[in-house]
């Protein structure tokens, strides 16, 4: 594995988006992963529609009654991949733009599908495997505990204590080998995470969190997706 890797340098990551006052982080994590996978499959970077997921994805966990993807009230990336697989794919952002509300009807147009899921899977709780899947398959949909993100301004976040109760969906796009830690007096490896709170939040819309001990549950729920490889895309 390379010591440093960032899918932004390889053109697989769209610009930072803003979910607004809506708990739709799960949809941004999902589209980010599929945008990357679609880029790997087609060599074209296409921004995909979160609003389609917000409006149309009500996929439920069959083993957990009442636990369904639910627009601004929350969802789960794996369920969203399942929906995308069943629906046939996601439309382009420009064809189904984000509104930040979940009060609209589903306007999915199957004739305008821009990317489709071939398959998806979960990655084992092992940082080397997460890095390997990132490099091989593209950006990964992950979950994290966001308690330190409310006040995060920059640098490499490496809290001494952080709950692993997952409450936020984000996108893992890369990792670095050496983020300086003044207090610990050593270089620390870190993950590079794309968030969906606009470019003005954090480090240009990104969050850096240290690697090594499943900080804030960052390694706990990692999903990789593969896109359908079609010439028409």
């Amino acid at each position: 594995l390379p010591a440093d890797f960032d899918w932004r340098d390889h053109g697989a990551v769209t610009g930072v988006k803003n979910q607004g006052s809506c708990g739709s982080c799960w949809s941004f994590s999902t589209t980010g992963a599929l945008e990357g996978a679609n880029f790997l499959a087609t060599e074209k970077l296409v921004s995909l529609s979160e609003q389609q997921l917000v409006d149309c994805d009500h996929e439920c966990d069959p083993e957990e009654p009442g636990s369904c993807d639910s627009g601004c009230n929350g969802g789960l990336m794996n369920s969203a991949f399942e929906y995308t697989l069943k629906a046939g794919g996601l439309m382009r952002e420009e064809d189904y733009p984000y509104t930040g509300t979940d009060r609209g009807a589903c306007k999915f147009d199957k004739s305008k599908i821009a990317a489709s899921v071939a398959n998806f899977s979960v990655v084992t709780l092992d940082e080397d495997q997460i890095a390997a899947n990132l490099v091989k398959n593209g950006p990964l949909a992950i979950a994290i505990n966001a308690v330190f993100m409310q006040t995060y301004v920059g640098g490499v976040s490496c809290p001494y204590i952080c709950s692993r109760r997952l409450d936020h969906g984000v996108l893992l796009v890369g990792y670095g080998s050496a983020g300086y830690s003044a207090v610990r007096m050593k270089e620390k490896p870190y993950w590079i995470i794309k968030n969906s709170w606009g470019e003005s939040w954090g480090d240009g819309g990104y969050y850096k969190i240290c690697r090594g001990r499943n900080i804030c549950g960052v390694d706990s729920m990692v999903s990789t997706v593969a896109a359908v490889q079609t010439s028409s895309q």
Partner: protein
Amino acid sequence: AASASEAFNDAEDPLIKQVVDGAEGEALTDHHHFSIFKRKFGKSYASQEEHDHRFKVFRANLRRARRHQKLDPSAVHGVTQFSDLTPSEFRRTYLGLRSKLRLPKDATQAPILPTDS
């Protein structure tokens, strides 16, 4: 959210890092920070009552940012666009991972990849 987003884009400096002043004149300093915060993020409140409430929340978040800074010294913690929200408001409004969360039992496991080459 849209107006706040526009305000971010218009801001000269995307970062505000004023979080570790001493106790002396803290109330005055917090008022100053709050003024900067409102201007920077285009915040306005419907009533004086709401304004005063948000200021209290903002002050609590300044203290929280200081605590986070101590717990997380390699990052920079401070004022963000969420500094006038309580932790529960923040969770309710911006975090959306389903609460009864667990991976489906039938989720496919990714194959183990070689990492030594």
